[in-house]
């Protein structure tokens, strides 16, 4: 398998179209003076603050960040809560083969312990020392730059030194200025309190979030970045026709091949299924379309004949 080439890498941002409850809550603590940008628009020396509402969204945005970094020849480090093997598998699940990059040292997936944390304790100084060492090593290895994705969920644990988090973010902002390194700090907007989010947001140069077309307790429609397309979660019916049409139209406009990720969709009615089938049909087989869903949802598309259209593949998702 090859890395996807860079044609997805610089799509124009769609922005946030619908302020649902969670989106609105975040908007209050958005970085002053800069609107949300798309994950694919990040550049070198950015200190970006990504907020996400669910693990699937975090992994999608991280995968796009990693993919675009590797395509641009940057060294990429992903600090997350899982094991390195899990990180590699997660990227593979999204069509990004990182084994060659891992083997060559271009890509590293690492744990918090040993990088930001030492024996489950945090100090801003030690974490900064780790990061500057990575930046030095990266220059020595001849990479054009460094990209670091940091899942900040560790800061939700009862660790000593947690009060140094704002200090760390401030030091980070200073350390990145004028360099070819970019850091993407990832905050769960449902779990971090607004005060903490607001206090760290000010130290970031960019605010990143998934383009969201609809978000309420029942349904979420947002862009997916890796692989590109849209993601539907919850239950969808004719009452969401408008945001669904917008999401489909933007996906078709921005990307060549499209994945419609419905793995977390529990219900779809005839109108919504028909709209997706018609959108796919309108492409007349010129592109590859993946409809990813559970068997119960797949049955609806089979009934409409969508699985038999040229270029369309129906991928059955099973519970992870």
């Amino acid at each position, binding site marked *: 398998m090859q890395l996807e080439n860079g044609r997805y890498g610089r799509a124009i941002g769609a922005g946030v179209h619908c302020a649902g409850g969670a989106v609105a809550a975040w908007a209050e603590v958005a970085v002053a003076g800069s609107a949300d940008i798309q994950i694919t628009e990040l550049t070198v020396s950015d200190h970006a603050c990504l907020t996400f509402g669910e693990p699937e969204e975090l992994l999608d945005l991280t995968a796009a960040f990693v993919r675009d970094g590797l395509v641009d020849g940057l060294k990429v480090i992903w600090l997350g809560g899982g094991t390195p093997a899990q990180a590699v598998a997660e990227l593979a699940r999204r069509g990004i083969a990182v084994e060659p990059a891992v083997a060559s040292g271009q890509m590293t997936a690492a744990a918090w312990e040993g990088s930001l944390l030492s024996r489950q304790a945090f100090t801003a100084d030690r974490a900064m020392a780790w990061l500057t060492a990575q930046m030095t090593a990266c220059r020595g290895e001849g990479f054009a730059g460094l990209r670091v994705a940091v899942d900040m969920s560790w800061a939700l644990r009862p660790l000593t030194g947690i009060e140094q988090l704002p200090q760390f973010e401030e030091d980070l902002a200073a350390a990145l200025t004028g360099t070819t390194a970019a850091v993407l700090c990832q905050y769960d907007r449902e779990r971090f309190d607004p005060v903490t989010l607001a206090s760290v947001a000010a130290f970031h140069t960019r605010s990143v979030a998934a383009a969201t077309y609809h978000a309420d307790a*029942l349904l979420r429609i947002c862009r997916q970045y890796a692989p590109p397309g849209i993601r539907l979660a919850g*239950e969808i*019916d*004719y*009452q969401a*026709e*408008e945001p669904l*049409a*917008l999401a*489909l*139209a933007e996906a078709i*406009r921005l990307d060549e091949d499209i994945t419609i990720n419905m793995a977390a969709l529990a*219900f779809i*009615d*005839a*109108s*919504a299924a*028909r*709209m997706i089938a*018609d*959108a796919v049909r*309108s492409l007349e087989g010129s592109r590859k379309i993946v409809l990813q869903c559970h*068997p*119960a949802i797949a*049955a*609806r598309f089979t*009934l409409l004949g969508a699985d038999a259209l040229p270029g369309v593949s129906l991928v059955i998702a099973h519970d992870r």
Partner: protein
Amino acid sequence: MTADPHRQPQAPQTSLAANAATAAGPDVPHTDATPVLTQDFGAGSLYALRAAVAAHAAQAGVPEPRARDIVLAVHELAANAIRHGGGHGRLLITDHGGTLRCQVTDDGQPPAAQAGARPQTEATTADDAPWPSEHGHGLWVVHQIADHLSVQSGPGGTTATASFTLRSPRQEPA
């Protein structure tokens, strides 16, 4: 009493309709109906309606794939009632000895100006999307997944009935 059945007047029916007395299927007697669920609904309570149908279908031992079909069928009939029948309606599910009959009625406010305006808004608001969904398509889907479907319209409103012949979970192939 003595009328020739061939000359009996027919009620107005759609192309999908059957005689009301056989709405649960021709083999099912109309009398021994056990009430399963009665629920009113409107545009804001379709989710609650689907959840109630799913819960009652599960309780009645309906296997999962069939239960999802029933939920979808009820949703489509209810959505039709909301969009074309005055904005709300009532669901009645009865069990006829192994056949579930899902009957959706609306109050007979036939689609007036406000209901007729809805397809128009879709076409215009979904700016560059050339796929406005076609209402009425839902009935086609119900026709495909239900064992029997009848729709009867009159001055008092529209009644749509979808019937599902059930097997026990053990008989259902895996």
